[in-house]
């Protein structure tokens, strides 16, 4: 990476962050709702990107963890009258623990077999949300979920709540960035690329697999605790299997195993339906065709295209350098 490239990147990041803060200031209520939803779904997708993209463990249960987080927040803040931060703590611990347990099958089975196991869990969680009326109020759902006070600021209005979501996304992103760059991140990638070799290098693949599941699931829980006060009403429907599939698609379309993949994937999954609204009933068809085309052209997602382009350019530059060095050697006296 050249110095100019680095500065360009930093400048680009600053522009994007500034835009995310300034531009929505004159958005209407609905626009802010959509953007907040993007921030929340990005957090959930980042969790799945850790489990699937980095550590290579397929999970069709991320939506269930969002549900667990959302119900923890809804139940604790309405019936318990507790602050959202307490619910956040409970959601993280709960999802981490359940994610850890759900990781055990991954020690035995992989790929689509693992997908089926997690799918079963997803269905189970949905049934609990729907049938355990005493806890979740079943199909009637939980309404009047309050929005939190953050550092003394009320977030009842859409703009402050959006900033709350954006801030949370910022914190999660920094933590994720640290994790991915740490030796743990490297071990996760090793797990994905070659578990047998990883094991022979002293990497405790068992512990890292469980950790990948637990941490990814915990992030699903974090997203859930933001989702509940965002919609202020939850019922079981949004947390059925299709949310897990949506999140999976966000990760894959954005670019599985790329840090910014979930940001892009969530943007497409949340914003594209809004942009394609003018097509009315054809929206899903256009969306489906676009996704299929993308995955045929680039199985590694949108960031995969960019990555391919950059790698190609770097390789060309490197071989040009080598050619120059070689010709110098040959012409040297």
């Amino acid at each position: 990476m050249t110095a100019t490239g680095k500065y360009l990147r930093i400048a680009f990041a600053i522009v994007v962050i500034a835009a995310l803060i300034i531009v929505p200031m004159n958005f209407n209520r609905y626009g802010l709702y959509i953007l907040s939803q993007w921030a929340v779904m990005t957090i959930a997708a980042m969790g799945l990107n850790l489990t699937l993209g980095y550590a290579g463990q397929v999970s069709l249960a991320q939506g269930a963890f969002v549900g667990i987080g959302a119900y923890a927040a809804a139940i604790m803040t309405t019936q318990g009258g507790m602050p959202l931060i307490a619910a956040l703590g409970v959601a993280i611990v709960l999802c981490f623990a359940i994610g850890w347990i759900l990781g055990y099958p991954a020690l035995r089975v992989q790929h689509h077999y693992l997908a089926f196991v997690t799918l079963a869990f997803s269905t189970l969680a949905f049934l609990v949300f729907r049938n355990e009326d005493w806890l979740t109020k079943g199909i009637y759902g939980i309404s009047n979920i309050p929005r939190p006070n953050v550092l003394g600021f009320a977030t009842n209005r859409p703009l402050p709540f959006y900033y709350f979501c954006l801030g949370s996304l910022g914190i999660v992103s920094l933590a994720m960035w640290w994790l991915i760059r740490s030796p743990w991140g490297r071990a996760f990638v090793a797990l994905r690329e070659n578990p047998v070799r990883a094991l022979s290098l002293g990497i405790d693949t068992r512990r890292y697999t469980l950790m990948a599941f637990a941490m990814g699931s915990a992030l699903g829980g974090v997203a859930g605790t933001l989702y509940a006060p965002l919609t202020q009403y939850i019922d079981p429907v949004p947390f059925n299997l299709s949310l897990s599939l949506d999140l999976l698609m966000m990760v894959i379309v954005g670019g599985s195993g790329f840090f910014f993949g979930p940001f892009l994937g969530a943007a497409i999954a949340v914003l594209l339906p809004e942009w394609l609204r003018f097509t009315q009933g054809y929206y899903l068809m256009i969306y489906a065709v676009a996704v299929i085309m993308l995955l045929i052209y680039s199985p590694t997602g949108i960031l995969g295209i960019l990555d391919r382009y950059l790698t190609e350019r770097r390789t060309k530059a490197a071989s040009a350098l080598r050619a120059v060095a070689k010709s110098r050697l040959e012409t040297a006296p």
Partner: protein
Amino acid sequence: MTAVLEVSNIKKSFGGIKAVDGVSFDVQEGEILGLIGPNGCGKSTLFNCILGQLAPTDGEVKVDGRVVTALRPSELNRLGVSRTFQLLQVFPKLSVRENLILAGQEHQGNMMSRLLGPSDAGLSAAADQMIGFFKLDHLATEAAGGLSYGQQKLLDAAMAFMGGPRLVLLDEPAGGVNLTMLGDLKERLAAINREKRATFVVIEHNMEFVMSLCTRVMVMAEGRVLAMGTPSEVRADPAVIEAYLGH
């Protein structure tokens, strides 16, 4: 001299096939033991049994006098036993330097310090030294998957040494490596053996490589030990000539 590795009566069957049928041997500290024999004679299976990748049907493995037969490969590696594989086993998407850091990181600190500590687990300098030692300098930041076969073999070998192992089992390190690089590899292995007192067991078909590098050679045939001795003794053994080397 003390035995770093003691293997006693290892057996491994797959169904009715006895892949390894009662193999026993010791490897002394600082030794380079060559392991040769025809394809399918059980060399790699023996390696996998020693390293905990396969559970032996019977028998016992000791490293530095400690029974390790039931340990997992990752635990064994942290006790100082390292290996390379017959087929290429680098991490293609990681750079050469990252591959080496990965290979050593689990030997540094604990889970917590690896999460909260520096990104390179304090291994950048060691990795660069290893890169220099194996003459991969110009490739340090390249993705390992983009290297030539021979270069990846060198990286694969280098990775086995990042944890500072006492005992390294190399499975066909010379396979598919061109002559120049082969010379390099042999010289590097001999240097590590000399300087770090690292003990090696090497499976190899390249006789020139085995006979010039190894201090002792063990010949296997049909899951059993056929002969054991210095390279010249083994080369002169009629049974070995019959079963493997040819007239």
